[in-house]
């Protein structure tokens, strides 16, 4: 009783903290994590109560790989820990600002994927604006709370050419040191970035790369604040096969890593459900003529077509499909949920369904507050890359404010966060591999607008999600 009374002021303080809750966190969970970190000796690894899951990524039994075989080992169920000595590094006293790194495609450049002009700046600039807004709001509230000094965003362009992402992260780790990094979008560049982050021991928060393999690397220095293509793929497959009963699904995708890995779970899940993809065609990023791919797709007589790629190509593929008389339902990735897509697709956009990592129509005063602040600051509407970057940056700011200026402790706070981050994109619960396991949605374009629908709302069936590890349960039987 007495203990409860003592906690009351702290709880009230926590409740009264303005949104986003990046200030001092007096929750028992966070206090306990910090107590454990600070109680450990310089060579000790604190007992941070690692997350242990029984199923990877909410995968249902009927789409698990090699479902008829008990695997020798399952990865990603127990959380990776950082066992190095970084927590013993003292907080520096001579800093004037608290630098946070940002790396994203913000300037037009040459693209390896296209062999010509780069193509992700529109997304990267929005990501930057979301991150900037979070930093500016934090500074308006006094900056880094422990010292009252401002946060500073160190912004670099993710050129991506010849592995330059790695060079930039090296710079942010050693030459212009930052405390944590937000970035990037291109999945190849993201992998390059986290390889450096791991060696340099600095946390990378990703808010724009939906490649499932980004966090499937077993390294303790990465986290992601956006639902990935695995989750979106599962929902699309459940909708197409379990609900709509499509039997012949075809895929057309970009030939870059975004397209290649984006459709992987759709392709594999469809096959495991007994509806193998009837045809998969790839095109080079930046293409305008898809007649070769679409002629082949048409010959395969699909019930539905899935596209994975950028908004422009998505619209052009759709338009050319319809021109060829291909009137199949059209499913796309989240990048199509954009004015560019609907502008180019025109009337053809009606009925298009996309996987989507959040629900922008959600009734949430914090989301409304974010939208107002964003409009005031940038004179435009925020979109998905801005919103996820805002959430990702706020998670970092919360961690810095509470862990102090120590890269390992910042990592620890993010990694051990017990409750989902209350993001403007929805709750962000981290999995054992620090992936965003929050709800994903289907976006449908009708009557000149996108609407967002949950699995429950559309009554989309799902397979049985097991509660025990594969190595510790009976096989469901060979499909």
């Amino acid at each position, binding site marked *: 009783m007495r203990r409860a009374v003592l906690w009351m002021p702290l709880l009230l303080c926590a409740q009264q903290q303005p949104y986003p809750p990046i200030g001092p966190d007096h929750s028992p969970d966070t206090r306990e994590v910090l107590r454990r970190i600070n109680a450990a000796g310089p060579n000790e690894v604190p007992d941070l109560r690692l997350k242990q899951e029984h199923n*990877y990524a909410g995968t249902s039994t009927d789409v698990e*790989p*090699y479902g008829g075989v008990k*695997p*020798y*080992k399952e*990865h990603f169920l127990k959380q*990776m820990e950082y066992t190095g000595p970084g927590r013993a590094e003292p907080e520096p006293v001579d800093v004037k600002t608290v630098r946070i790194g940002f790396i994203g495609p913000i300037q037009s450049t040459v693209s390896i994927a296209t062999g010509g002009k780069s193509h992700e700046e529109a997304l990267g600039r929005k990501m930057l604006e979301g991150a900037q807004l979070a930093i500016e709001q934090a500074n308006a509230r006094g900056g880094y709370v422990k010292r009252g000094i401002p946060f500073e965003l160190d912004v670099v362009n993710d050129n991506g050419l010849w592995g330059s992402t*790695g060079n930039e992260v090296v710079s942010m780790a050693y030459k212009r040191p930052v405390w944590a990094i937000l970035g990037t979008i291109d999945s190849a560049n993201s992998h390059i970035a986290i390889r450096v982050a791991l060696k340099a021991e600095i946390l990378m928060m990703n808010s724009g790369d939906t490649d499932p393999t980004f966090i499937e690397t077993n390294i303790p220095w990465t986290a992601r604040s956006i639902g990935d293509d695995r989750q979106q793929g599962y929902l699309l497959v459940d909708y197409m096969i379990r609900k709509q009963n499509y039997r012949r699904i075809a895929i057309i995708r970009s030939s870059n890593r975004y397209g290649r890995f984006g459709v992987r779970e759709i392709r594999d899940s469809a096959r495991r459900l007994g509806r193998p993809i009837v045809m998969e065609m790839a095109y080079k990023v930046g293409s305008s003529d898809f007649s070769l791919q679409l002629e082949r797709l048409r010959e395969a007589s699909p019930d539905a077509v899935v596209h994975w790629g950028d908004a422009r190509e998505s619209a052009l593929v759709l338009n050319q499909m319809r021109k060829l008389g291909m009137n199949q339902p059209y499913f796309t990735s989240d990048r199509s949920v954009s004015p560019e897509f609907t502008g180019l697709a025109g009337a053809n956009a009606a009925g298009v369904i996309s996987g989507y990592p959040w629900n922008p129509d959600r009734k949430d005063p914090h989301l409304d507050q974010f939208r107002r602040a964003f409009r005031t600051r940038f004179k435009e509407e925020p979109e998905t890359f801005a919103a996820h970057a805002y959430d990702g940056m706020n998670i970092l700011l919360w961690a810095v404010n509470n862990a102090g200026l120590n890269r390992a402790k910042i990592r620890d706070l993010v990694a051990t966060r017990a409750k989902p981050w209350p993001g403007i994109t929805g709750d962000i619960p981290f999995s054992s591999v620090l992936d965003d396991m929050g709800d994903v949605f289907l976006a449908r374009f009708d009557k000149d607008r996108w609407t967002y629908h949950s699995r429950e709302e559309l009554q989309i069936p799902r397979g049985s999600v097991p509660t025990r590890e594969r190595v510790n349960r009976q096989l469901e039987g060979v499909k």
Partner: protein
Amino acid sequence: MKHASLPALLLLAAICHAQQPPGNAKLPFVYTRWKQFTKADGLPNEHIFAVKSDGPRIWVGTEGGLAVIDKKTGKVKSWTEKDGLPWRVVSGIDINHKTGEVWLALFGGGLARFSGGRFDHWTQMNSGLVNDVAYGVAVENDNVWVATTAGASRLNTVSGEWTVFTEKNAPMEEIWNYGVHYGDGKVHLAVWGSGVLEFDVATSRWKDYLDPDGEMEIDLYRDDGIVHVITTGADYVDKVLWVSTYFGVCRYDGRNWRGFYNQDSGLPSDFNNNLRARSGNEAWFATDKGAGAVMDAASNTWVAYTRDPRSSAGKAVVTRDKAVIETVEMGLNLPHNYVVSMDVDGNDVFVGTSKGLAWGIGDGYYAGLKERPRQLSRVGGGAR
């Protein structure tokens, strides 16, 4: 006092038997004499990304400079950027024994050669080096190979010609190179996302080793190939390929694969930063929870070296098929249990950790297993 339960008694008996059993047994060599080197000894930085023993000296690549240790005197000489080292983070070291040149992979700084007291420097802006984020370097005859984050580069030191290997001319599913090693006429690249690539120097042909199940989240069968496609190191000795990953380690003798995990062997952790093979039967692994050495692969006999983080004591745990068969307590062995790099030279081993370097002195070393009495529970000591 309450009566102990039968399982508890059996467990106690098993522990006593494991730690102090009587009589001889077939056991591996255990390193009990260790020296440590830290900043107090003159290292420029204690995060040891690379270590290379070269006869009477030990080259040490750190996060904050290069050092060389005189084995006889223990004296340390170091170089930082103020001394001409082109970039502070030295992530790989190899020696050209024909010329005596020391080749350095610089993490974010390209490639450097240290010779005659002078550093020469190659970057992606002044040479054919494909990227400056270099993770490893290996000397192959007159060639120097560099594993970078955007492919591998090969410099012919006689002609000055560069060759770049990426997905365009090598079977790299991804180009994110991590480790490179030369031995027995073959160059092996450990590539994040692309398993291990083998380059036959005589034929210039590539061969790839990938995880047969093709899945990131499982290893379907332990012994069907590389345990995971994200690899961190590869060593080829006695025509045996050893591979380290963040998911476990494995061995390939040209016919059969064998995977080793923490759950089924003495490997201290599945998170392996690097490795160094001494033979086809023995290899050392740099894990985040100590140094693990498989001393007899055939019998799955391991020695795991760890330090007590609360004291200056260390221990070695000998296991066979995960069962503990000997525990040897000793003075300080590793400065820290987070092991980053590794080397083996003659009878000695060198363990680079994130808080300094450990040198295991192998007086009386023998390969494989030998019938010997189990050691006393506390031996040796960590000499500084």
